[in-house]
Every structure is written in structure tokens, then in C-alpha cells.
């Protein structure tokens, strides 16, 4: 794997025609002994002891003296004018200190509106009208949680209901305007394109076969088991705001708060403590956070706001809600030549998805996927509706989930249309290993990949050919069995500074490592784990580089007062960015360590070589200094003229994104009586490059697969025609239990990233991206012979039942 000591070297700017084929293996590399426990070890997590004993510190566990509680009055209408808000009864209640309305926030300095992460604006609290069901109307501050809950029942709001805007196609007609605060009275927000329209049209004109299909990927909600919340603690004497917050990106949030509130950034501390799951849902700035901070500012006391599950499901950021029209072209040999996609993005009442700012449709243009095709053109339009804002909060990798769903479904439809086995069809259309780095028709440069190896492996694990035989036999008897494949290419690690920023802040990430005299270390990062195991994996990366036992490295994240600036953890970016920063910082330390070792051993730098945890004299390994000896010397015996200490910080600007990939195969059996889809087997072969901790990678994949199964068969946010959320509690928003979730079977290949310092790619969202089309393809495959070509997810029993009965199939 490439050794990159100088940042300038890790570009993949190779000339045209030069292949950088990276070899694929499937054995996890382990180079350090157990006592050091570097990369590749199945190390038990360092963070677990506190969680296992109930000693985690989540936001709702924070208790500060004199703390007050906030609860929020919410709109029962999706679209309505606010005629009046009468909080007098609430204010008379014992224990109620204040009621904060939009008017109050306006008077406090126009705080009733805030910027979104896409540079749109969103109401913090409304004055004139509400634009989504469960929108925040006003907040009550009280001395106890229970009194606050009573008080919100005593606030009386007079609404004049307006027509809701629920259907995004209707919204485009501009009959009812959602955002009349805007100068231009339209619901159309933006139009975005990628690829070459002319070249694509040409390819379609020449095509021997064209398949067309429409897909609706409905709105879903991440529903991490911990909801969102904050404790804001304004200290009037110090003019200092301390905030505990469920935040996946504490530094970015601090900067946004500073800009919005006017409190200087050095007087704001955001602490993101233990977070009970994020998955993108804890990236946006919700109105509740802003109101809570203002409440503390105004009262001078700590204020806690923890949302209920219902509030979380009904008002917080969603994911998906893409209406897709796709066409795929193939030549006379059945080779895929082009892709044409039009999409309508239902954004809700503000453009607030946490995408990098130049990407209103995220990384959607990755949609040519794993296939080598000549041309593609993608268009997306964003539209306002009277629903909560958002778009990428469900482990979605910036719209890659939608892109992959579309292309994997289309490839499958094309294969079936041509009468080819879907696995064989993919194998002959894949980008070949020798084509990497691969320039896609929409401008991506894929770093490395070996799609055929992954698919072949998945097929082997499952004995795919035998299953196809079984399917044929069953079909002859009228039994419905399906096999679905998804061979996805993911794109993560946002991102290089030339293209990526959030609200202007570049998307580097950072690591700061400091080694103490006694050879122990502290490492702080700009990311923030919400369960991904950074306290363990980052320590393993550093252990690999510096030979310090990973147990001797204390990893910290989440406190903006101490951690170096970073953009946080989401979109599977931590390993690609902060993981790389850890390597680079470690290598800076190693460079200094070498000089100290040379000084201690009284040799020249060039006489030394590194061996796992020590510098030793070439040809004379007994003459060596361990990293611990070097660390001690850094404080007690460093060379004259050299600074003491042994530490470094690195802000890593990735040269490219990374491209994890995989092949998933799903086997389903369909109950002809009830329409239920039973997942019999699901094999997932993932390639995330070099693996830091296989135990943790497996956990990430299992979790992502269940979050891929969920929207495929169970979860959907449903609105009625008045914009009321019908699935606003866990009673109807169907998060899978251990019974619905299958026993996932995993395999792996390892094709490192040539530009990442340790060849790792990131993996957290691959399964959520890859799984839904595998499941959808399996169900359609089971029913193809009946004339079924597409079923939109979630594939619920009533949907399947309807198709069966329409096609004369019953129990």
C-alpha cells in the first residue's frame, strides 16, 4: 500500500491511459502484534465499558444546577396563518418562567429566521404563518419537565388554515405558494444538471434497446433511538454560552451559532457528549436548538430541551422523497451505453438538506454506478412543499442511496428485458479493474474498484446458480421465489476543498496527537462518533503508525474548546478525512521522532529504519529506541535547537473522494396469500479498502443493512391530503425489530484506495445504499414472469397482494 509521507504525492493525477490497477485481496492485513493492536485487529471497543454499565453521558443525562426545561407548542396544520398566540394562561401557571414566540425572537435581533445549511432560510418561530405540520409555534420555559408539558396545553393559538401543498408536482404549478417570504413567488427552488445532454441524446438515438421506468423513493425518518436535544447554559458573568447538544458536527454548529446569534465564537463552547445514534439526523440545526439557546441567554439559567419521539418523527429532517424518471440505453449487444434521469426533489418547506453547498442534489450524479457507459445526463429540480425541511438524514451518503436504487433497478430491468441473467449482465457491463482510476460520464474519478470480484464472491457464498435452478423449479409449481442483486458504487469522504464546502467552510478534517513523557498519548479529532467506534479505530490507526499500543491512546471528540476544527461525522467521511489526518499527524510525529532517535543513538537520520514501534540502526537492530523512549526524551533529552514535546496536528484536505463498493444478493419468498415478502437469505460482500477493525466494520454493515431493509419493506412517512403526518409515532413508523431483521451474511474483498494514506475508504453507509435495490430487485424478479416490472419501496404486503391478484395469482 502506498506510503505517503509527503502530501503532494497522494494525488491520483495519472496521465490518460495509465492504469493504476490496485490489486484486490480478501485477507485483512495485520502488521502489528496484539499488544500494540494496530490495523486489522478485531479489537474490543475501548468505549464500551461505560455504555455497558449505564455510565454513558448523553445530553438528557446532563443535569446542571438551576436547570429549566423547555417544551414546544406545535402546529396541527401543515399550512395556516397565525392570527394570534395567547400564552396568558400558561404564563400564570406556577413554575412557568417564560413563553418565547416569533415576535420575541424578532425583537431579540431578527432571530426568528435562520440560515439553513444550503444557504436558504428557515423559520425558527413563525410570526405570519406555519408551513408544516408539527412546526414549532412557541416555546414554554418552566422549572420542571412536567410543568412545561402542562403549560404547552395552556397556550391557545388561533389559526386560519390554508391549503396544504403536499404533492410536489402540484407544487410546481405554483397555485399555492409555500414561501411567500421570498421575492420570487414560486415553489421551484433550484434546477441542477450533470453530464452531457447532447452526447446522451445521441446515444439514445442510436440505441437498440431503451428501457424506461419511474421510481418514487418515499420520505423516511432516521429515528435514532436517542432523539435530539440540548442543554444550553449561558453564563452572564462570563458572557459565555456553553451548549451540550446532540450534534454530529459541533464545530460547524458553533460557527453557525456565532453567525446567527452574534455571540462571539470564542465565547461559545459546544460539547457533543455521547450521542445515541446520528445517521444524519443530528446534522441539521433545528429550531428547538436555537430557541433553547435564546432561552438560556434570556433567563441566564441552564435550559434543557429534549424532544419527544413524536416531535422527532414529525418535525425533524427526513431523507429521500425523490420522484425519479429514468431511461437506460443499450446497444445491439445489450451493452449499456447511456442513462438519462429526470428527478423531482421534494424538499419540504426550506432547502435545508445538509449537502455540500454546490450540490443541491448531493452526489446524485454518481448514478451511472458500476457500469461503463458512454454518456449520461441527470437533471434534478427542487421544490417546496408544506412539509418539514431536510433530505439527507438517513445514512444516505448525500443522495447516493437514491442514485444507486435507480441504476441498480434499471440494470435489472434491462437484464430481464433482454432475457439475460442479472448477474451475468452485470459482469459484462461492469467497469473493469484495469479501467481505474475511472472517469465517469458525469465527471467522477473513481479511485479503485473490482466489481467482478465482489459479485463473483457473493455468488459463490450463496451458490447462486443452484438458487436459479431452484427458482425455476419453484416457478413451475407456481411458487414465488426471487433473487435480487445490487452491485453498487458508493462515493464518500467529502471532500476536496476545490469542490466541497458547507456554508463556505471547506470539508477538510483534522487530528491532533500529543504524546506524553511516559509514552501515552491523547488524540483529538474534528469528527464526532455517534456509535461508529472512533475511540477504538482512530487509536488503532495511530498505533499502526507509531507503535504505541492502542490502549495507550486516548481519543477525544466533540468538545469545540479542545478538539481541532472539523466538519463532523456523516456521509461516511470520518475514515477518509479524519482517519487520513490521523495518519498524516502521526507521520509528522514520526519524522520528529526519527531525529530524536538519531540524537539518542548518535547516528545520522539516514542510518535509521522504522520497525513497528521503534527506530533501529540499519543492519544493527539491537541499537534501537522505542517510541516510548523517544517520547520521554522529547521532554528530557531532546536535541539542542529542537522544540521539546512530541505532537502534531493535521488538517487533511482529501485529494478526491473514495469509492467503496460491493455486491449484495437477496433471496426472497413471497406468500401468495398475504403478499408478505420473506427475506430467506441476504449476502453482502463489501469492499471498503483496508480495514481498520473488522469487528467494527461488520457491525457497521449489519446496522446499515437493517437500515436498508427498513425502507425497503417497512418504513415510510405518510401524509394525508392536508399535509398531516399519519406515521408520526413508532406505533406506525415501522422500525424493524430483531425478528424482521434477517441474519445477515457477510463477505469481503479489499481493494485499497490509492490516494488515501492507509488505503481505507469508509463503510458506514454502503449497506443502506446497496440493500434496497437488492431487495426490490428480488421481489420484482419473483414476479417478472407475471408481467411486473417495478414496485416502489416500501414493498408492503398490500402492494404485493394487489399485483398478485391483478395477475390472477392467489393462495
Amino acid at each position, binding site marked *: 500500500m502506498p506510503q505517503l509521507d509527503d502530501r503532494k504525492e497522494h494525488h491520483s493525477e495519472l496521465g490518460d491511459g495509465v492504469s493504476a490497477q490496485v490489486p484486490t485481496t480478501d485477507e485483512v492485513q495485520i502488521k502489528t502484534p496484539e499488544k500494540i493492536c494496530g490495523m486489522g485487529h478485531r479489537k*474490543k471497543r475501548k468505549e464500551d465499558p461505560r*455504555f455497558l454499565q449505564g455510565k454513558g453521558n448523553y445530553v438528557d443525562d446532563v443535569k446542571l444546577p438551576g436547570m429549566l426545561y423547555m417544551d414546544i407548542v406545535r402546529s396541527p396544520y401543515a399550512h395556516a396563518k397565525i392570527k394570534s398566540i395567547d400564552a396568558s394562561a400558561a404564563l400564570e401557571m406556577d413554575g412557568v418562567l417564560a413563553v418565547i414566540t416569533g415576535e420575541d425572537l424578532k425583537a431579540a435581533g431578527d432571530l426568528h429566521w435562520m440560515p439553513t445549511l444550503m444557504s436558504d432560510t428557515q423559520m425558527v418561530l413563525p410570526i405570519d404563518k406555519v408551513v408544516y405540520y408539527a412546526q414549532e409555534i412557541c416555546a414554554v420555559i418552566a422549572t420542571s419537565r*412536567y410543568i412545561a408539558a402542562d403549560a404547552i396545553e395552556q397556550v391557545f393559538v388561533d389559526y386560519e388554515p390554508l391549503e396544504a401543498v403536499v404533492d410536489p408536482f402540484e407544487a410546481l404549478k405554483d397555485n399555492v405558494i409555500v414561501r411567500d417570504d421570498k421575492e420570487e413567488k414560486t415553489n421551484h427552488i433550484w434546477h441542477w444538471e450533470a453530464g452531457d445532454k447532447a452526447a446522451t441524446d445521441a446515444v439514445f438515438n442510436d440505441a437498440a434497446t431503451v428501457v424506461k421506468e419511474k421510481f418514487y423513493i418515499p420520505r423516511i425518518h432516521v429515528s435514532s433511538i436517542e432523539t435530539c436535544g440540548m442543554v444550553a447554559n449561558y453564563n452572564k458573568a462570563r458572557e459565555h454560552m456553553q451548549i451540550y447538544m446532540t450534534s454530529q458536527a459541533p464545530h460547524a454548529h458553533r460557527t453557525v451559532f456565532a453567525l446567527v446569534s452574534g455571540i462571539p465564537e470564542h465565547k461559545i463552547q459546544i460539547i457533543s457528549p455521547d450521542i445515541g445514534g446520528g445517521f444524519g439526523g443530528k446534522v441539521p440545526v433545528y429550531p428547538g436548538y436555537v430557541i433553547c439557546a435564546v432561552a438560556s441567554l434570556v433567563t441566564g439559567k441552564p435550559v434543557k430541551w429534549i424532544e419527544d419521539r413524536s416531535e422527532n418523527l414529525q418535525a425533524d429532517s427526513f431523507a429521500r422523497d425523490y420522484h425519479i424518471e429514468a431511461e437506460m440505453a443499450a446497444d445491439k449487444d445489450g451493452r449499456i451505453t447511456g442513462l438519462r434521469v429526470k428527478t423531482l426533489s421534494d424538499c419540504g418547506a426550506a432547502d435545508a438538506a445538509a449537502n455540500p453547498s454546490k450540490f443541491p442534489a448531493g452526489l446524485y450524479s454518481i448514478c451511472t454506478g458500476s457500469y461503463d457507459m458512454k454518456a449520461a445526463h441527470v437533471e434534478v429540480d427542487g421544490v417546496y412543499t408544506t412539509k418539514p425541511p431536510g433530505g439527507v438524514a438517513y445514512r444516505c451518503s448525500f443522495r447516493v442511496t437514491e442514485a444507486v436504487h435507480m441504476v441498480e433497478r434499471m440494470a435489472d430491468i434491462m437484464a430481464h428485458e433482454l432475457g439475460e441473467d442479472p448477474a451475468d449482465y452485470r459482469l459484462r457491463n461492469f467497469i473493469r479493474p484495469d479501467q481505474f482510476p475511472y472517469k465517469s460520464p458525469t465527471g467522477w474519478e473513481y479511485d479503485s474498484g473490482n466489481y467482478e470480484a465482489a459479485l463473483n464472491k457473493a455468488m459463490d457464498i450463496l451458490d447462486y446458480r443452484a438458487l436459479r435452478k431452484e427458482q425455476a423449479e419453484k416457478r413451475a409449481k407456481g411458487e414465488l421465489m426471487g433473487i435480487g442483486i445490487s452491485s453498487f458504487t458508493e462515493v464518500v469522504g467529502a471532500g476536496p476543498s476545490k469542490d466541497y464546502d458547507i456554508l463556505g467552510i471547506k470539508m477538510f478534517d483534522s487530528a491532533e496527537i500529543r504524546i506524553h513523557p511516559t509514552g501515552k498519548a491523547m488524540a483529538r479529532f474534528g469528527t464526532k462518533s455517534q*456509535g461508529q467506534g472512533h475511540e477504538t479505530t482512530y487509536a488503532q490507526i495511530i498505533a499502526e503508525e507509531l507503535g504505541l499500543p492502542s490502549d495507550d491512546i486516548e481519543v477525544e471528540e466533540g468538545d469545540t474548546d479542545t478538539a481541532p476544527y472539523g466538519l463532523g461525522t456523516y456521509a461516511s467521511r470520518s475514515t477518509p478525512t479524519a482517519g487520513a489526518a490521523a495518519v498524516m499527524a502521526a507521520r509528522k510525529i514520526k519524522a520528529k521522532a526519527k531525529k530524536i532517535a538519531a540524537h539518542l543513538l548518535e547516528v545520522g537520520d539516514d542510518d535509521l529504519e522504522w520497525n513497528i514501534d521503534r527506530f533501529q540502526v540499519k543492519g544493527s537492530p539491537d541499537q534501537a529506541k522505542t517510541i516510548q523512549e523517544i517520547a520521554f526524551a522529547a521532554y528530557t533529552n531532546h536535541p539542542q535547537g529542537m522544540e521539546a514535546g512530541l505532537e502534531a496536528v493535521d488538517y487533511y484536505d482529501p485529494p478526491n473522494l473514495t469509492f467503496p463498493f460491493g455486491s449484495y444478493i437477496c433471496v426472497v419468498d413471497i406468500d401468495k396469500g398475504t403478499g408478505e415478502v420473506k427475506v430467506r437469505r441476504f449476502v453482502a460482500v463489501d469492499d471498503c479498502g483496508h480495514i481498520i477493525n473488522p469487528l467494527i466494520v*461488520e457491525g457497521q454493515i449489519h*446496522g446499515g443493512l437493517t437500515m436498508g431493509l427498513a425502507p425497503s419493506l417497512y418504513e415510510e412517512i405518510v401524509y394525508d391530503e392536508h399535509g398531516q403526518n399519519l406515521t408520526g409515532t413508532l406505533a406506525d413508523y415501522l422500525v424493524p425489530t*430483531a425478528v424482521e431483521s434477517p441474519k445477515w451474511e457477510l463477505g469481503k474483498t479489499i481493494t485499497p484506495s490509492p490516494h488515501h494514506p492507509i488505503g481505507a475508504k469508509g463503510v458506514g453507509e454502503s449497506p443502506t445504499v446497496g440493500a434496497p435495490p437488492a431487495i426490490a430487485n428480488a421481489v420484482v424478479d419473483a414476479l417478472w414472469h407475471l408481467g411486473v416490472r417495478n414496485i416502489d419501496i416500501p414493498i408492503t404486503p398490500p402492494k404485493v397482494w394487489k399485483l398478485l391478484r391483478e395477475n390472477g395469482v392467489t393462495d
Partner: protein
Amino acid sequence: MSEHEVTLTINGESVTRSVEARTLLVHFIREDLSLTGTHIGCDTTSCGACTVLVCGKPVKSCTMFAVQANGADIETIEGVAAGGELHPLQEGFWEKHGLQCGYCTPGMIMTAKDFLANNPNPTEDEIRHGISGNLCRCTGYNKIVEAIQYAAEKLQADAGGE
């Protein structure tokens, strides 16, 4: 309206507090007793993050009033590691990576504790059904099942007179 004195045993220790009748057991445990290992994850009795043992039975403490627990014996996650030594379930969750964010974990362990006491040699299917009242978003459940299997084996081995 009515305030009541509640006396109960929590993790072996007797406590007495005065509470409103409507105080939910989960709030009593977290706020009045400052035992924050038991978590709140929903408002429709759906997620099980609040599971504690009441008189040995795992119940969702968000769907019970503290006054109902008057005179009861309650065990929370904080009481599971006896004398500082991890319980086989805690060991199993650690060994097998049965937790990621840790939020559902206390509830899972309390449910599993009673489950294994009644079904010491369960099948995988029985385990999955046994924890079907506890939602997890992070793990995909595979490794929670393995953690419980690990604990079952260890408990059997310990019981076998090691």
C-alpha cells in the same frame, strides 16, 4: 394532584421519595434517583430503551407510574455488574460488539437477563423473539444475538460448577 411516598429497593438499596402520582417510573429512576443508565427512546411504549427489572420482570418503565412500584424490587443496568465484575451479558456484548451508540444497550441487557434466566439454552429464533420489544438502530441485531448466545454459554458453564 396527589403526592405519594414511595419506598422501593433499587439495585439492592432501599430508597424513599415523595412523588406526584403521575411521575413515570423512568423519570423517577433517571431524575429522582439520578440513575441515568435507563434511557427514553419513544413515547408509544415501542422501543424498550427504558427496560428495567421490576420484581425480576423486565418492563418498560415509561409505561408504569413510580407509585405502582411502591414496595417493589427494581434492578437497573447500574446494578448488573455485581461487586464490580461484569455480568456475562455485559461481557458478551463487549466481546461480540453487541453495541455501537450504546443507547438501547441497557434495555437490551435487562431484557436478556430475564430471558436467559427463563430460557438458558435458547435458539436464535427464540432470542430474536425475546428481544423483539427492544429496538436498535445501530447494530442490525446480528451481534446482539451473538452477545446473548455468548452469555448463555457462559452462564451454563458457570452454573455447571466451574
